[in-house]
């Protein structure tokens, strides 16, 4: 077995194509590493600026405003304290379209809004085309490189008629096949895994997530080698094999994920931004009446409180205003919860529909390891909504109870940095299992293709 592996490796190492392949992918990974680093530095710089602005705003809010209608508590409650999405060590791996979401959201007392998490000042070109990242290299280009380098696996033997000879003469055909694939894997996949490891080490200290990512890259590469082997074993010529392998790449990397997305959005309808805005606005108008009812019931429960009227208490408007805000937030929150559930169902349908695509699976694994998967972003949005609700509750309680103003009240001044959105390594397990399953299926099909009579 060892001599077959050595033969495969040495034969490949003698070709200029392999060195070109390694140079191209080495270069691409270096560019992706720098791109990820630049993105991370930009996010940190933005967060530092936001923190600075927040400190200034808190300092300004501590000075009582002079306007006659101002309520100090509300001024404090409106200070833009930010909640930040914690960035993991592998965050720069998948930055493709993550820029469209804010990873730092202002936690003032406004009711939840669908545009809260949406970054507005963003290059539409970058958003439309997507940022170049390590995931692009690993998920999309790496298999294309493997198709270019391994489409001729066994084709030459078949064309020359020596494949049958090897099958007859080799002590064990199974071991020969495995050794051939392993040889290619060592020459084509292992160097890429090593460079990815170097990139991750350059970004920061090694973690378990990094080890899982490297393992996934190794399996993904093996999977594509097996696909190429299966095609090559039945191909009448190298050109035919290359065309078929390219067609499979297009199907699995481009068409299946796109078709799965279209199918999911057709099967599970999610209101568009326009429909959502109309629905939320209708609810906000209804909330005004609900807020007044809330005020009445609150005053009934607390007879010790004076009934706020505009004539007796110039600041009295703040109380009904806040209760309207509470009612509005509750209604809008319910609508947005429904939206999040629909989006989650849509994602699940898309994931099931694209289960046949190793590229979609690998993309999901990489995004999850980077902490930029849709589920985590949805949890982050949920955590932001919950923190806002708590701040609003605290503010309502202080205003309604007419508590003395405290510019350092921790309920309103503590910066809720780094919301701990719990996502463990276990979230990548389904993706990894699916990837292994796809690998096994591809191996079974290739085995059948190789052994079946031509």
């Amino acid at each position, binding site marked *: 077995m060892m001599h077959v592996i050595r033969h495969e490796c040495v034969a490949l190492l003698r070709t200029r194509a392999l060195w070109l392949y390694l140079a191209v992918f080495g270069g*691409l990974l270096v560019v992706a590493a720098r*791109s990820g680093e*630049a993105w991370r530095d930009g996010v940190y710089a*933005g967060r530092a600026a*936001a923190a600075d*602005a927040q400190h200034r705003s808190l300092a300004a809010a501590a000075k009582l405003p002079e306007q006659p209608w101002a309520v100090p508590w509300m001024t404090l409650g409106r200070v833009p304290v930010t909640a930040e999405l914690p960035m993991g060590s592998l965050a720069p791996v998948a930055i493709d*379209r993550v820029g*469209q979401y*804010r990873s730092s959201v202002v936690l003032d007392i406004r009711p939840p809004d*669908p*545009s809260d998490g*949406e970054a*507005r*000042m963003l*290059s*539409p*070109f*970058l*958003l*439309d*085309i*997507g*940022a*170049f990242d390590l995931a692009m290299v690993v998920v*999309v280009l790496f298999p294309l490189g493997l*198709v*270019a380098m391994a*489409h001729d696996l066994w084709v030459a033997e078949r064309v020359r008629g020596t494949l049958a000879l090897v099958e007859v003469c080799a002590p064990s055909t199974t071991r020969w096949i495995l050794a051939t694939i392993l040889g290619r894997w060592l020459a084509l996949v292992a160097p890429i895994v090593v460079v990815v490891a170097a990139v991750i080490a350059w970004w920061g200290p090694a973690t378990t997530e990094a080890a899982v990512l490297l393992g996934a890259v190794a399996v993904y590469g093996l999977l594509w080698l097996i696909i190429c082997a299966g095609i090559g074993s039945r191909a009448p*010529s*190298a*050109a035919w094999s*290359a*065309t078929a392998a*390219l067609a499979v790449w*297009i199907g699995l*990397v*481009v*068409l*299946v*994920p*796109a078709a799965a*997305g279209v199918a999911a*959005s057709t099967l599970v309808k*999610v209101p*568009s*931004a*326009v*429909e959502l*805005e*109309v629905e939320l606005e209708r609810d906000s108008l209804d909330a005004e009446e609900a807020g007044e009812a809330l005020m009445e019931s609150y005053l009934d429960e607390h007879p010790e409180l004076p009934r706020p009227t505009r004539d007796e208490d110039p600041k009295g408007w703040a109380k009904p205003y806040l209760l309207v805000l509470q009612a509005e937030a509750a209604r809008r929150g319910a609508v947005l919860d429904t939206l999040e559930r629909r*989006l989650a169902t*849509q*994602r699940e*349908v*898309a994931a099931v529909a*694209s289960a046949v695509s190793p*590229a*979609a699976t690998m*993309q999901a694994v990489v995004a999850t390891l980077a902490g930029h998967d*849709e589920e985590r972003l949805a949890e982050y949005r949920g955590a932001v909504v919950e923190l806002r609700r708590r701040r609003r509750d605290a503010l309502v309680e202080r205003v309604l109870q007419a508590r003395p103003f405290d510019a350092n009240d921790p309920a309103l001044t503590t910066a809720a940095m780094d919301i701990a959105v719990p996502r463990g390594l276990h979230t990548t397990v389904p993706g990894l299992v699916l990837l292994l399953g796809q690998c096994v299926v591809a191996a079974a099909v290739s085995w059948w293709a190789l052994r079946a009579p031509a």
Partner: protein
Amino acid sequence: MNPITRHEFVNLYRSRTVRSVASVMTVVVMIAALAGLVTQQHQVQERVAASEYARERWLGQGAKNPHGAAHFGTYVFAPVRALSGLAPGLDEAFGTVVRVEAHVRTPLSGRPMASRPSVGPFGWPSAVSLCELLLPLLAIALGHGTFASHDGAGLLDSVRTACVSRVRLAAGKLFGAQLAMLACVGPMLLGAAGLAVAVEPSTTNLVCILGIVLGITAYAWAWTAVSVAISAATERASTSLVLASGLWATTCLLAPQFAAAHAAAEHPMRDDMSFQRAVRDDLDAGMDGHDSQDARLAVLREHVLAEYGVARVEDLPINFDGLAMQAGEVHAAEVYAHHFDAQWDVLAAQERVMDRASVLAPGLALQRWAGALAQTDLAHHRRLAESVEAFRLEWVAALNDALVRGSRTGDWEYRADVELWATVPSFVAPKPAEIGSLMAQAGAGGVVLLGWSIVAGALALGLGVRRLSIRGGR
């Protein structure tokens, strides 16, 4: 027809591989075109319904102070262009709805992509984006063996010995491949164009969709010629295929991403927080840092008191608060315009970088060409955003004017009703641009596509003739 061209065309068109690739592509692009047009029609209906709701809400707000109504606000929904279903351009990256109210200018929010699942690395599929991605592959399937496979089989020498000139042979092969490409994509393109025109028939749409079809044809021509040129430059068909695929990956997958990243790095936009902070600072202190709100208000008060010849604002026959708010609105509009224009200028600079990059990536040129003709490009979105702001200013001015003329200073109990609400202006979407100006906007993309077609055609001919010369000399 040149017999070599006919032979090449028939051979390619009969090829099972080519027919399979062309059939799959036709099905995929037609599905994308149909889905795009259905979505576009749905968007039109949803936005008409939303606009009607916004109008109804505005008229039914009840009696209130005009300034309260200005805070109650209204909504503007981005109009949907007729060809956006086929060529959505930058529509996915820009918002669709904006709340219009006093004091604040906000960009449109609610990107369509936010309510859609992730669909792999190439974004939401549209007819044009799929053509951009898949047409080169069809061209490669057609052209990679034009010279290489025949040469391997020794056929080129046989044809050459039949006294066929090298130029005629090379041109025949090139045009045969081009004809086969046209035969593969023609029905698909005409079908998609017919659907688009049938949905919203108009001369402008017809001209624009024909322009888009022409652009896609030029793109297909260029890629077929490139594929033939690579075939002429390589010994084996498989090498030709791998090289052409590598070029495709570089120009269609990598170059656009590098270009977008380079554009964003070379001309960075301000992020949301720093943008808002800069606007707030200028609103508070004036753009020069000295002209604070209080100072501006004092000057206005003196001016108005002098004009009416009274000593106190309470003695004015009009509401000074309304005047002050309108003055504040004008100042805020200047500040906002200053900052938003700067952001739009940055985006224009990024677009110029993308235009330059399209020389290396013709897919970007096709996007530019189709986006401009479908009115889904940057210029269109800027025009829309500016028309929304112009409407906001007119709308707020009408409400402030009603406050100034209908009440006296300090009279916050003044109430206007539906009579006023019905007279303030409504948003009217900017009219579709004239064909001439659309062509001018699309020009950058068109020139690159034309350039690629000419250069690639010449290259294919040149390399083909050279290849035949080398064979003939042996």
